[in-house]
């Protein structure tokens, strides 16, 4: 089980790097799909089958399809590297390093022994349904309405004027 985790983790980090470094947008999107699927495998290893499957259905199967659609419809070819801005080099790189160090420090402080205790909770569909429709029903419904409004807005904007 552990070896499976290390393989998935390593490949997903490599694929995630490929998302950023890749110059062909379609390959970037495909790498992102790979990352999402590997994350699902890691959820599986944690014993959260429902979350793993939902991860694949929602992110890899629905959202990324739209990404790939848009990339293909726009016919995005290879990216041409822009003139590297000086701001990115002198401000961006140190900030990224600082951020990484901060994350490392936080993780280290939280789990000095190097292993996180396995969380003891029920991640099944019934438990998540109870949480969503009892404890958090208002935020859940508000988010749904928000998405609905966004869809309607998109339809109105996309509709041609008569």
């Amino acid at each position, binding site marked *: 089980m552990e070896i499976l985790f290390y393989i998935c983790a390593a490949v997903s980090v490599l694929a995630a790097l490929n998302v950023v470094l890749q110059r062909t947008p379609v390959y970037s999107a495909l790498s992102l799909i790979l990352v999402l699927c590997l994350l699902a495998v890691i959820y599986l290893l944690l014993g959260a089958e*429902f979350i793993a*499957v939902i991860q*694949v*259905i929602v992110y890899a199967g629905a959202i990324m399809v739209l990404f790939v*659609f848009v990339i293909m419809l726009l016919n995005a070819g290879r990216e041409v590297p822009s003139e590297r801005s000086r701001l990115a080099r002198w401000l961006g790189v140190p900030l990224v390093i600082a951020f990484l160090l901060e994350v490392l420090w936080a993780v280290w402080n939280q789990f000095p022994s190097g292993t996180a205790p396995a969380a003891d909770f029920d991640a099944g569909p019934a438990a998540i349904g109870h949480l969503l429709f009892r404890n958090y029903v208002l935020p859940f419904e508000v988010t749904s309405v928000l998405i609905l409004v966004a869809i309607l807005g998109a339809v109105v904007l996309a509709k041609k004027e008569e």
Partner: protein
Amino acid sequence: MATLSDTELFLLVTMIKIAVVMFVLMTTVAYLSWLERKVVAHIQSRWGPYLVGPHGLLQPLADGVKFLFKEDIVPLEVDRVVYWLAPFLSFALAFLSIAVIPFGGTFTIQGRTFNFQITDVNVGLLFIFAVTSLGVYSIVLAGWSANSKYSFFGGLRSSAQMISYETAMGLAVVGTLMIAGTLSLRGIVDGQSGTWVIGTFNTYLPRWNIFVQPVGFFVYLTAAVAETNRIPFDLPEGEAEYSNMVTVSCLATLLFFGGWHGPLFGPGWLRMLLPIFWFCLKVFCFLFFYIWMRGTLPRFRYDQLMSFGWKFLLPLGLLNVLATSFVVAWLSA
């Protein structure tokens, strides 16, 4: 025979199960193409394949050999990686979903009980939906990578079709899930054993979901035909659709037709194997239905297909969910 440890036994049995299931699936897929040509030929008053082997039975093998020796033509300026990846993806995903399909009850070796199923995931149904939702990529990537406007638009249309009908298909099975109260395919089938009893009156009708979810079944079957890209919704065309057909037929059997439940009789070994026979028989009926439909129905135009999916199937599926949830709530109150 030396006794094996539990882990060894589990590994051995799983390996054998995978090998047997893959062998059966591959053979089914190969002979499905033979059956399709034969049945469609007879519908149209022809003989169909007749030359290779008795009744053309060796035709799939001959086709396989022919494909092996064919020249691989790669068009100019294609995106090589994606061009090869797309068909690979389409087949891998088509075979993947069979892993969670249960096809019989249980059997016992050395005091340990095993399922007639490669693996029993407790969200088996969602697993299949996840795999089918990834199947869209194989088509959209194949269309894009060929670097031609025609195949690109074909790919876009087909993937739009698959996404649209996936929604209806998902809604169609919600009613069944509410009745079963579980996402495990084994659990759904277990809920359909026995006969319908109204009060104290035994109807002798098998307790299959089709009798309480006819609308759900209709929506599922129609959406499934579109999802597997068969006539009358067959804009894209590919060999992996045979394997998808098997999966969808298995799912229809499990969700609406009681899976492997059927009359049991005879000695112990027969009682163990009969469920598998009933399951295969039901799946075969669905496969035949698919082929029959292909020989009978004309093809939909693309805009008709989209408006049918969004304006008829989807609302029907939603109404079915609404009605079922009211009845389930009323019965449990």
